[in-house]
């Protein structure tokens, strides 16, 4: 490993300071998004075991919306891979993958799913969330900004202490129920008008 001297280090530091959004920074963002997705999926795995309506099932039908977004940073692709990898290792989750909003809507209308995991944003996201709620599908995503839109479950990792986020109205519609000890940890968010 080649060593650099002190002055060179100083100039390297200046370089990083002047270009904080370089490739190294992009790689870090991808990793963080992936980690968020992984933690949210871990929460989901435990949530279905504790929720009154879902905990007795042996098989969970999961519809995963994994949008194909072609960007320079490749962050969506890594998140998608993480989601796929997570469900692939858990056989009690039967996975159906769609890559755009229309497919997702059609899948919701035609299929009978227990869970919809949204890995990325699509233009029809509001319709999808509404359709899922009407059909009693538990919507989950690591994108916390979807909770006010009607997303049932997410994980806010940007807060000082991590918090389980839930849409209050969607929970009422879905009649979701958790043990009190866990329910106290949930932060309910109202739906935007």
């Amino acid at each position, binding site marked *: 490993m080649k*060593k*650099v001297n002190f002055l060179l280090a100083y100039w390297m*530091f200046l370089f990083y300071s002047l270009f904080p959004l370089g490739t190294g920074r992009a790689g870090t963002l991808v*990793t963080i998004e992936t980690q968020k997705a992984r*933690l949210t999926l871990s929460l989901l795995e435990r949530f279905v075991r504790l929720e009154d309506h879902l905990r007795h099932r042996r098989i969970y039908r999961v519809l995963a919306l994994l949008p194909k977004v072609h960007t320079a940073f490749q962050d969506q692709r890594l998140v998608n891979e993480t989601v796929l990898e997570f469900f692939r290792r858990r056989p009690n989750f039967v996975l159906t993958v769609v890559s755009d909003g229309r497919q997702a809507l059609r899948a919701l209308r035609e299929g009978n799913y227990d869970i919809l995991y949204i890995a990325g944003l699509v233009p029809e996201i509001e319709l999808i969330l509404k359709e899922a709620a009407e059909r009693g599908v538990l919507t989950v995503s690591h994108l916390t900004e979807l909770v006010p839109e009607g997303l049932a479950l997410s994980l806010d990792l940007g807060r000082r202490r991590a918090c389980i986020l839930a849409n209050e109205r969607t929970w009422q519609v879905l009649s979701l129920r958790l043990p009190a000890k866990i329910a106290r940890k949930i932060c309910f968010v109202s739906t935007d008008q």
Partner: protein
Amino acid sequence: MKGALAIRRRLLARLNATVLVLLVILVSVSLTVGATLWGTYVVQKELAREREENLKTLLLHTVRVIEPHVKLLVRSEIERVADELLQFEFIKGVRIVWQEPSIYGDIREMDILLGRHPSNPPERLQISKGDLEGEIFSLPIIDQGEVIGRLEVAVDDRLHQELIHHLLERFLFVGLFISFLVGGLLYLYYRLVSHPALALAKHMEQAPEKLLPFPEVPGPKEIRVLVESYNHLVERLNHYREELKAAMRRWQEEATRAEAASRAKTTFLANITHELRTPMTAALGMAELLADGSLPSEERQYVDNLRNSLKTLSGLIEDVLSFARLEAERENVREEVFDLHALLEDLRKLFEPQFRSQGLYLKLEIAPDLPRLVKGDEAKIRQVLINLLGNALKFTMKGGAVLSARVVQRNEGLVHVEFAVKDTGVGIPEDALERIFIPFERLAPESIPGTGLGLSISQHLARMLGGSIEVKSEGPGHGATFYFRVPLKLVEGERPEAPKVEKLSGRVLLAEDNAVTRHFFVKILEKLGLSVVAVADGNQALEEALKGDFDLVLLDIRMPGLDGLEVARRLRAAGFRKPILAITAHAVSEVEAESLRAGMDGFITKPISREELWRHLSRWLS
């Protein structure tokens, strides 16, 4: 202040080029070492400060980068950042310590509810890379005001120290190199420039009688030119020296010859003066004695004619001797207080009978502001005026002459007097106005007696007195006017009246080898009331003076056996305290000076009248 100046003077006096060179080298090395150490210290301090600031900024930046990874427990990213930090040579180890994110606790609680048994949660999470030894820099990882972890970095200071040492060594090396280079150049300058210059100065200082050329020295062109110039100068100086020596030899020979000639001239002058004056004194004395006696009228007329002829002859002799003395520059100016009015009146009295006897007039005109008492050489002024009046008498056939005196300039204590002798004589042609002052140049016909020296002597005397003589004439037949200007010192007060010749008393020893002169002096002295013992030579004079009780001794200078000078010396050596006066016909100042050195008290020149002798003796006798 004075002490500091004295110390500085002493130091500067002891300072020489060698000490200066050593001093410069010493100061230069000291300054270099001092400046290097100080500069290194400053650089070290500045580098340390900068390094610390940079390090803090780097760590702060790193904390900002790893903070989300720590919060989400992204180990791979945290390790990658730690590895990146280790890329810096001065960072030897990195440790990141943080609290477990709270979501993991929530998930663990869910697992417990689900009947799972998760492992005990770690109290602290930690990633360490490298060697955490040495100086540790630590920075907290803060999330929304809460410390959630800490980044620690071990910094290796050796690189920094090596850099400082490297700088120090280089600074010292360059500084010392420059110092020694400057010292070497100074020494070279001293060796090639100062040393030869000093050696040249020493060579000049220790130069023997004959200057020697300076050997060739290696050095810059200027020094070689200096040495060559010096050697050229030495060559020329030696040449001039030889020429000067030869000239000095020639001059000494000339001086010796001139001195011998001068001595011969003086001797001749003294001799001729003595030889001429002695018989003249005797002749005049005898004529005077004859005139004092009772003679028949015809013989008295003969005696008067004889006296007049002798006086004319004496005047001619005095003119020649005066001119000889002036030419030989043997005359001295004497200053005495005299009555200027009385002098002019004397001259009128002296010349008026002669003018009248030739049917001429002589008038005296004295300006009212002419001072009476002045200080100057009365004898020489009298001599000049006698010459001018004598000329007027000789060259005026009808009419007469006017002697006038007036003040032409008056300064503080000094008065410039102009004497004018205006006659109605034959006059002087314009082309002859200059020639009349040339010695032996005579315009007068042969029938008029004269040597042609009178005006020349007068001009010499006027110049000696600081004055001048001019002549104006309207031409032949219109007479001439001579102007004699002379500066005189003013004297305050009145001059005492000249005492009348009175009888003196005392015993006088007279030593005179010339029998006629001795007889004349004996008679004169006896007429003055003195008792006289006369001897004919120096031995008798010495014997009589020591034996007898004399009030005054008169010694002729030139006598057979012991001369007057030797007699005076011996008398003074024997303790004789009475006054001794020299009587001599040597009217030469050297003789007078010699007589005073021999112990005499005065000097009487022959021929001398009775009044003059009385005036001299009355100073010593009652």
